[in-house]
């Protein structure tokens, strides 16, 4: 009895300990059950995303593949399924299997990051994949998978329309469906229609153990392929246009120019469809889908800005090609120039109110004397377009200016700009491609803004003047537009006043062929232009290529039977860029030293001796040989060795012409508008017109003649 209480105390304490365990058990298993299951779920489950095959991009027939996705057999490492302690062993096994340095693989693992799922990048043979699968215990976390790879079977063709895909940028990551490991459309249709093209990724939910090894599959959702995009691009035409642009560049080079690039647009003026859109030099979009691009290749793309689509991003003064706008304005509003000097008055045709005498220059108060590129003499509105008289269009601008200064008339000084804006200048066309530029239509308001903010685009002193308006009338000065804008404006003028929103995509279908999205042709606005004016414009555009004085007559002289059905307008834009050109006066090179000098020059300018020889031959026995731009260092080197380079001089060229031509065909019912720009290629009539001529010949089924130089024009 004495000690019974002590045993009871021990029993009570022991009971208490059991009670604590039981209470804790109740708390854990009943109160924290839900949260524990959640945590357990997280660590017991691995979700692996399966990339969806990106949709195809087809030409306008829906039969030719421009971009597609092929499945390649690849080894994919899923680090979530790879126990960390086995990683080193895996890397060594893979290195031995694939014959690559283990350090390279280690770098790839590091780059991918912990828990990442990544492909080893190269397609593997079936034998290799069977080997891996049979010895999967030596390759933990490795799966053999069909990895979708984006391919562009046509190489550089239509590259800028198609765009390319790549790692997502910051803004792409804002989209909830994009993860940093995804590839997204970065440019072109790939970017514009990324949502429709990318499809829906699938996923496999695995049950895994603590070591990350797969115990089984819980759920499997197959990926859904992206939609098929049918473009408005005519593949063969696109191909032809690109080759024509390269030929145009060669033509400019033969002229001793150093053209930078060329761009072209072929539009259907009946509905705004883009039949071809090219910017050369281009790039191969496949370079970006493999994710590997050599440094030299990258440097070349950067140097030539080949990744930019100059057909919608390049801004150039439209120059004389813009004259169709004041031309239409003049006819629609009855605003024609009048001669200033009475001495010419008797020369005018009294029956024609548009009659004008172009003496070649124009003096406007407070501005320097303006010089036309040629003295045209007696012309009227029709011949003014054919011969591309600056005088005539300055006269129209002057008339608009004077009318606006006249209190009785109270007309707008922005009449010309209003017409330009109505035709789509100064605003994006709304084409379904990213990064389109809007261009500039300068007016007083624009001028004052830039003067006030000292943007450097306008002179620091003096106000907006009639001279500035006259510059606008001939598409020069601050007036800039993209090739697509110019083509679209021409389309609206020749189709009777309908400004279409251009489109490169016609429709998108799902993987079963059912339509997902139809890109209806939509009208931006209707412009009131009388049929008589349209007919007049079509006729005068024909005059440009066919009349004896037409600026593109030389370029079109061998067009063929359908010459009657085509027309167009030249343009030569002056872009102020001081450049130093190396020129050799061949008459000062002693004939017996010619080979030696050619060889020296070839080394100096980095050309082959054969190319330099070709230029010598082209220049003739006593001609001027232009050898292109020269850098300061090269110039200094040459200056120290005058004996090695007899006859060589450096000329500073402050204005390099950019060549334009916009063609229309067939004139009775226009189906094609072709705009071609050759940057720093020379005169429009000489370089751009023959290039466009070849494209028009192709479009009308004429035998295509070689691209030869046309006339030096505006």
């Amino acid at each position, binding site marked *: 009895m004495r000690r019974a209480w002590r*045993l009871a105390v*021990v*029993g009570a304490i022991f009971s208490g*300990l*059991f009670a604590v*365990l*039981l209470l804790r*058990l109740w708390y854990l298993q009943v109160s924290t*059950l839900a949260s524990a299951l959640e945590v357990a779920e997280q660590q017991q489950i691995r979700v692996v995303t399966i990339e969806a095959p990106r949709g195809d991009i087809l030409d306008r027939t829906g039969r030719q593949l421009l971009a597609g996705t092929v499945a390649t057999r690849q080894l994919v490492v899923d680090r979530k399924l790879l126990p960390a302690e086995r990683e080193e062993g895996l890397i060594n096994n893979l290195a031995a299997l694939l014959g690559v340095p283990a350090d390279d693989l280690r770098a790839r693992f590091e780059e991918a990051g912990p828990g990442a799922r990544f492909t080893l990048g190269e397609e593997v043979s079936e034998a290799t994949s069977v080997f891996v699968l049979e010895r999967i215990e030596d390759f933990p976390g490795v799966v053999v998978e069909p990895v979708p790879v984006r391919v562009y079977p046509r190489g550089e063709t239509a590259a800028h329309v198609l765009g390319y895909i790549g790692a997502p940028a910051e803004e792409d990551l804002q989209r909830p469906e994009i993860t940093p490991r995804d590839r997204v459309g970065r440019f072109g249709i790939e970017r514009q229609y990324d949502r429709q093209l990318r499809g829906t990724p699938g996923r496999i939910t695995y049950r895994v153990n603590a070591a990350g090894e797969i115990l089984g599959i819980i759920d499997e959702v197959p990926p859904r392929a992206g939609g098929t995009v049918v473009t408005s691009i005519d593949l063969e035409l696109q191909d032809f246009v690109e080759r024509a642009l390269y030929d145009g560049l060669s033509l400019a080079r033969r002229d001793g120019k150093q053209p930078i690039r060329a761009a072209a647009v072929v539009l259907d003026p009946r509905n705004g469809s883009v039949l071809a859109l090219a910017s050369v030099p281009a790039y191969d979009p496949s370079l970006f889908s493999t994710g590997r691009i050599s440094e030299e290749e990258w440097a070349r793309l950067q140097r030539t800005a080949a990744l930019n689509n100059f057909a919608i991003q390049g801004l150039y003064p439209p120059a004389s090609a813009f004259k169709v706008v004041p031309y239409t304005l003049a006819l629609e509003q009855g605003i024609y120039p009048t001669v200033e000097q009475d001495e010419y008055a008797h020369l005018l045709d009294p029956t024609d109110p548009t009659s004008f005498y172009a003496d070649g220059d124009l003096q406007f108060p407070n501005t320097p004397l303006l010089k036309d590129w040629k003295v045209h003499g007696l012309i009227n509105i029709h011949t003014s377009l054919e011969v591309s008289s600056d005088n005539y269009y300055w006269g129209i601008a002057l008339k608009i200016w004077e009318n606006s200064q006249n209190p009785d008339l109270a007309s707008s000084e922005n009449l010309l700009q209003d017409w330009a804006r109505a035709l789509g200048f100064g605003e994006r066309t709304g084409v379904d491609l990213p990064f389109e530029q809007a261009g500039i239509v300068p007016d007083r308001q624009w001028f004052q803004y830039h003067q006030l903010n000292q943007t450097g685009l306008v002179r620091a002193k003096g106000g907006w003047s009639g001279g500035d308006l006259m510059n606008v009338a001939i598409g020069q000065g601050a007036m800039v537009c993209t090739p697509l804008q110019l083509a679209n404006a021409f389309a609206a003028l020749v189709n009777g006043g309908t400004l279409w929103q251009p489109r490169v995509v016609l429709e998108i279908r799902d993987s079963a062929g059912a339509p997902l999205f139809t890109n209806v042709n939509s009208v931006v606005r209707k412009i009131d232009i009388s049929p008589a004016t349209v007919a007049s414009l079509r006729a005068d555009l024909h005059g440009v290529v066919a009349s004896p004085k037409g600026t593109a007559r030389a370029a079109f002289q061998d067009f063929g039977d359908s010459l009657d059905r085509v027309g167009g307008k030249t343009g030569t834009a002056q872009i102020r860029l001081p450049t130093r050109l190396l020129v050799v006066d061949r008459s000062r090179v002693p004939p017996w030293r010619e080979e030696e000098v050619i060889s020296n020059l070839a080394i100096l300018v980095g050309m082959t001796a054969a190319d330099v020889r070709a230029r010598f031959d082209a220049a003739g026995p006593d001609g001027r040989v232009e050898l292109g731009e020269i850098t300061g260092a090269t110039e200094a080197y040459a200056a120290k060795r005058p004996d090695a380079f007899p006859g060589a001089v450096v000329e500073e060229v402050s204005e390099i012409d950019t060549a334009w031509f916009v063609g229309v065909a067939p004139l009775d019912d226009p189906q094609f508008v072709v705009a071609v720009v050759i940057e720093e290629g020379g005169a429009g009539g000489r370089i751009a017109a023959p290039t466009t001529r070849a494209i028009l010949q192709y479009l009308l089924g004429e035998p295509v003649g070689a691209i030869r130089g046309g006339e030096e024009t505006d």
Partner: protein
Amino acid sequence: MTAAGVSLPHRRRLSRPDYLLAAAAAVLSAVGLLMIYTVTAPRNEAAGLDPSGDMVRQAFYMAGGVVVFIAASLLSDRRWKALAPYAYGGALLLLLLVLTPIGSMRSGAQRWIPLGPIDLQPAEVAKPAMILALAALLSSGEGGRLGWRRIAQTITLMAVPSALIFVQPDLGTMLVFGFVALAMLFVAGTSVRHIILLLVGAVIALVIAFQVDILKDYQLDRLTGFLNSGEAELTLNYNQTQSQIAIASGGLFGRGLSQGLQTNGAFVPAQRTDFIFTAVAEQLGFAGSAVVLGLFALVVWRLLMTAAAARDRFGYLLAVGAAALVVFHVFVNVGMAQRLMPVTGLPLPLMSYGGSFYGAVALTLGMAHAVWLRRSPVPGERFLL
């Protein structure tokens, strides 16, 4: 005239065995076997081994344990008391041996002596030896209150094997010694004042151990890892976090045998040994775990009843020591799995995989059962009541 009324020395008949104790121990062992199977089978299978390999091995250990239990029960409690010095000496010898090159080193600790097919853990064998020695010491001499002298002797008795165990190192076993000794001292009649002083002394000793860096780093890590349970789920707390998740996801009735996702996925380390309880909790739920705890409580209750029925002070103390051993192991082990106690590596009696401890527990229960079998049916002949 016969020698009526004259009490002759005779061999007393054994009382009825404690079937409840035996049954509870048997069921716990069986559940343990089942749990070991569910935990080890998937992994053995994955490794291309016999799925029931671990279970079969444990079944052999258990068979050995049953033999040990029966043999220990058949030995008289008096004989056990007489054997106490030898058992104590033998345990010390083994503890010394394990520190020699004979002992094998595993995961930073030298705890095993390889004996053919089995590895003997002297620290486990030392537990019943310690109980035996303490019971013998505290029951010798006069009854009544224990003075400082006895307490000092008790501490000395504990100190020698403790020091040897400390060198291995094995913090858990030292704590077991401390708890068992405290319980036995208390029921032996030590005044509450002395008990409190001893507790205070133990706490001070622990604090000093922390301060002077006697504890191995991993022991500190385990303890501090437990204290900082808010953070660091990745490293130190990993075992306990996983164990807690496993237990909690069992819910009321569990996920069913071999359906435990945490268990099957091998998320809980050392699951067949230290964390066997999580397998019970995940697969059998609160219901199954409560039954298991109830069975342990039944074992402890039977041991306390044995103490109450013991014919002398030695048997009384022996039975209490046995009960304390079981209680402490269960509380620390299950508490650890529930993230209530730090990780000390104490296995769950009768259930955890391993031969040495199963044998040690069988021996302890067998010695206590020897006391039970020789209890007196006559209350007056009992020590306590």
